[in-house]
């Protein structure tokens, strides 16, 4: 299986996960969007050398992933293959910041290693929050939330179009890539010239298909507005969800619970 195949399958799997019906999936998309954004803000707002303070924040993704019955292994695999720009930049820290800050047993620990570890923790927390949001909310749900949060209508509608076309066009591209691969086994990727031709062909097919679909939609009365049967209502439960998690994030941000727990444990054993 090529990288393209697995990306395409992952896309479909995330999409189908988002149509499950669990306690988390039923919560209003706006509530989940707000909670996720505040979560990321809280994680990112920790100072550069924060480490123990970040750990308790893992409660949120783990809790939601279990409640929403998401496959943890799948999410973890997605996390690993994410483009590692943050880690690429972060890995310089241990070489640049060599000031010894603390000791653990025989090891001297420098500031650079701690800030690098902090970047890794931030990376895992923020990326998993985004993946969990999409896996529990569905893309149309998020579009709906954006619409209700007064994001310009034109932008939201074209976002919905984009999403509907992604699967069709990615499949088309996948077929072209496969067809070339079969005809040229020894060449892993197409040459520059062939690539441009493939791109052009994909583009022409895209336009023709878009034209057909647009005409079909117009003949069925499409007027630029996307209507859904599912009525969104912000219930008391949604409000409770938001308040509960905001309170949790505030507590975790303002106290260092894992340090407190550690102190307590060490004292108890002394």
């Amino acid at each position, binding site marked *: 299986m090529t990288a*393209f195949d697995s990306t395409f399958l*992952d896309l479909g799997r995330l999409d189908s996960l988002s149509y499950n019906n669990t306690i988390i999936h039923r919560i209003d998309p706006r509530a989940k969007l707000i909670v996720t954004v505040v979560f*990321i*803000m809280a*994680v990112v*707002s920790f*100072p550069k050398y924060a480490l*123990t*303070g970040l*750990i308790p924040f893992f409660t949120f993704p*783990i809790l939601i992933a*279990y409640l929403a019955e998401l496959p943890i292994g799948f999410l973890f695999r997605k996390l690993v293959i*994410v483009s590692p720009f943050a880690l690429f*930049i*972060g890995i310089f820290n241990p070489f*640049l910041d060599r000031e*010894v*800050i*603390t000791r*653990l047993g025989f090891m001297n*620990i420098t500031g*650079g290693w*701690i*800030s690098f570890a902090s*970047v*890794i923790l931030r990376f895992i927390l*923020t990326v998993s*929050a*985004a*993946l969990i949001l999409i896996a529990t909310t569905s893309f149309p749900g998020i579009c709906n939330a954006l619409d209700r949060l007064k994001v310009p209508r*034109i*932008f939201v509608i*074209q976002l919905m179009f*984009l*999403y509907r076309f992604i699967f*069709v*066009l*990615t499949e*088309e*591209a996948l077929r072209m890539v496969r067809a070339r691969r079969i005809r040229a086994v020894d060449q892993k*990727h197409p*040459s*520059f010239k062939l*690539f441009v031709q*493939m*791109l*052009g062909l*994909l583009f*022409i097919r*895209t336009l023709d*298909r*878009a034209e057909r679909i*647009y005409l079909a*939609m117009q003949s069925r009365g499409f007027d630029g507005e996307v209507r859904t049967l599912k009525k969104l209502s912000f219930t008391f439960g949604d409000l409770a969800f938001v308040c509960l998690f905001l309170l949790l994030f505030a507590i975790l*941000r303002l106290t260092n619970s894992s*340090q407190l*727990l*550690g102190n307590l*444990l*060490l004292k108890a054993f002394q």
Partner: protein
Amino acid sequence: MHMADALISPTVGATFAAVSGAAVIYSARKLKESANEKIVPLMGVMGAFVFAAQMINFTIPGTGSSGHLGGGMILAILLGPHGGFLTLASVLIVQALFFGDGGLLALGCNIFNMAFWTCFVAYPLIYRNIVRQGSRPAAMTLGIIGAVLVAIQLGAFSVVIQTLLSGRSDLPFLSFVLLMQPIHLAIGLVEGLVTAAFIAFVKKVRPEILEAGTTSIPGTQVPIRKALVGLSIFALVTGGILSWFASRHPDGLEWSIKKITGATEISEPIDGVIPMLGSIQKKTALFPDYEFKDTKAPPKEENQIEQTQIDQNASMISPGTTVAGVVGSLMTLVLACFIGFAIKRRKRRAS
């Protein structure tokens, strides 16, 4: 390259989110004024096209390594600056959600780095000035490659500035610039070549699309100066307000000011808002002292003997605290997982 949540501070993230959000609203308004409703589905389709095209890898000539398309300038050329901007922003949203490329808070930064420079600076100032109706193919290629190169250089430079202002990385400004700009010169050249070849292909097969892109879609003539001035004022104001709030905590901006001025502490006025805020912080904040290292650690004194330095240096944390931190963190993780398992078990029993 996508800016990541893990590297930015809330101030930087929120400032750029505000700027990109304003640019989205501005572009949407401009499109609405042009009342070309057919362009909205076309934007969606083109966004999906770029998304699918990005997944096809090709062999970069002369190197043997593989690369893929970015597609920003293609969108700007085919849809005009406003349509192109909105479409590229949507592609970035989908990437952030489904692939975790960048992140939700860094989305504003990424839209700014990739879509803003491409559609509102490189496209009108370079592409539109070189390529006109009936331009010769050579001029077209030149205009496209030039525009793409400038857009990607500006984007890479923005990544450097954003990382620096956030203060999560120790990379000094100069080495970071020397690391980023040459890599992106190569990336920009390849992207420019692909874009130019693709546009030439479209011109050959479906010339009417390109003509439509430059003539019938209104709003191609952007009053670019007005938009730029307005946006930069907006950016300065939001950034200023946010960093004023953020400066209550030792945050990125403060850190970078420290790096630039070389001073360990900026002398604070004795009366006024800052000491007042400071005292509020001391009263309300439980957290300034618990982390491994206080950002305002006193400068290291070199002439001390190493042993006493370890004992006396205020930035050193006693090993006991460290052990407690490690034990506590592990326990917290175990607890979090345990809660998860408990939920799963109960659910299985219930079903």
